[in-house]
């Protein structure tokens, strides 16, 4: 699953030359980045402009993390960075050097569902499913933070994850149920 990728810098020169802000120099800029993704160490050379979201999906082929709005508005790209939920579309891969990243693939699998995933199934907490990976990752964090205490608190602390099918009542119920069960 996790791979080590080392790309060579492209040799083609930029068609734009002679300007003080031309791209020819910046276009070949790469930075090495090492991080742990779902427990496995990965090392890559990446352009600084590459977001964590694109890095996970395009370079590591971890496509469970979805690209929705790509501007921090929808939350479907939510991952955990050092245990905290964040929008991977608003994070550069190079900013994650030395960090631990957990994606939906690191939360659970088809063979071994996480309790929050099972709760989403039990409560019909999705329709099309596109927001669901982000909802699950966000819910895992929401519960760990102690914010899954009642309907109002879950609504507020899950507000960074938009569901255009509007499965919000079911999502809230699923999060509250999973939180209650995690307490035993």
């Amino acid at each position: 699953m996790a791979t080590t990728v080392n790309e060579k810098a492209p040799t083609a020169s930029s068609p734009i030359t002679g300007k003080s802000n031309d791209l020819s120099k910046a276009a070949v800029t790469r930075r090495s980045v090492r991080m742990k993704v779902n427990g496995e160490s990965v090392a890559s050379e990446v352009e600084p402009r590459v977001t964590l979201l694109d890095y996970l999906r395009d370079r590591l082929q971890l496509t469970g993390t979805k690209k929705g709005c790509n501007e921090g508005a929808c939350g479907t790209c939510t991952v955990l960075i050092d245990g905290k939920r964040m929008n991977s579309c608003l994070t550069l891969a190079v900013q994650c050097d030395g960090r631990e990243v957990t994606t939906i693939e690191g939360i659970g699998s088809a063979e071994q569902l996480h309790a929050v995933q099972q709760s989403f199934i039990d409560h019909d907490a999705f329709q099309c499913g596109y927001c669901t990976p982000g909802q699950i990752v966000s819910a895992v964090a929401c519960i760990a933070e102690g914010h899954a205490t009642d309907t109002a608190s879950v609504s507020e602390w899950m507000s960074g994850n938009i569901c255009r099918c509007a499965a919000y009542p079911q999502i809230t119920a699923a999060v509250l149920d999973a939180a209650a069960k995690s307490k035993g």
Partner: protein
Amino acid sequence: MRNFDYHVADRVDEAFSIDGTQTMAIAGGTELLNWFRLGIAAPDKVIDIGRIAGLNTIERSGDWLSIGALATLNEIGEHAIVHEHAAVLAEACLAAASPQIRNRATIGGNVLQKTRCAYFRAEGPLPWACNKRVPGSGCSAREGLNERHAIFGWTDACVAVQPSDPLVALAALDAEVEIDGRAGRRRLAVAELHLTQQEAAAAGLDAALAETKLRPGEVIVGYHVPVRKSERSAYVKVRERASYEYALVSAAAVVALQDGLIARAAVALGSVAQKPWRLRTAEAQLVGQPPTRDAVRPILLAGLADARPLAHNGYKVAMAAGAATRAIVEAAA
């Protein structure tokens, strides 16, 4: 997004080369990455100040609550001593953005976010005029869709508002912002960090482009909030949905009571100007009044008499008076 060179700073002085255009600083990056995508900024070099040690502390020292620039909005919003000494700031931080964004967004960068004006915040090249994006092109919002724009401080060149929530709270708290740069460290009242378009023009600066008093190479390193034991505070954010939305209008109130009457009051409004708008005349007139809706609302409404609404945002005057009233009543409760 255009590529750029990337450097991780270990010390603040490594960021003194930032100029806001060719070389920019990144911390959380929640705002900056969208600027890059839209073409609002396209630097050659980005300096990551997010790993500088010692800049994310939240601590009380004497009569000041000190907050490092790298403290995130969630860290501030959920910190016990912020709740104890500056409740309005904690509330404003937690009213901002979403939980995921608040885990990345820092209080240093938050106050430097740019306006949500839809004419400004679109992918370049813009099909319409915007003096902030293309100097001299004009202001589409001046005669266009301006229901979310300024009622104070604007000029024909630009009618944008500053959207930060924590900034409004810091302004009401009389907080100071600490700035570092080649000329050394300096402190400035947070309420005076930003410039309205009128203030920028009066200072001989570009009314649309000059937004703060930060000089090239200067970096916000933290904030200092005076701790006044008898004061209580509250933040009211009025918006079109209950969470994860920018304010139409917001209000931060800090009050001290004596024998049930207001002994001191500070009120700052958000999303009405390109800076947090202190109602200083009304603040003085609130002294001696009971913290009730009937007593304070007429004073606050009178304090908004010099507002200059645009064609579509006249509602903001009454809404601002209402939000400020609620903030005072809630703070005193």
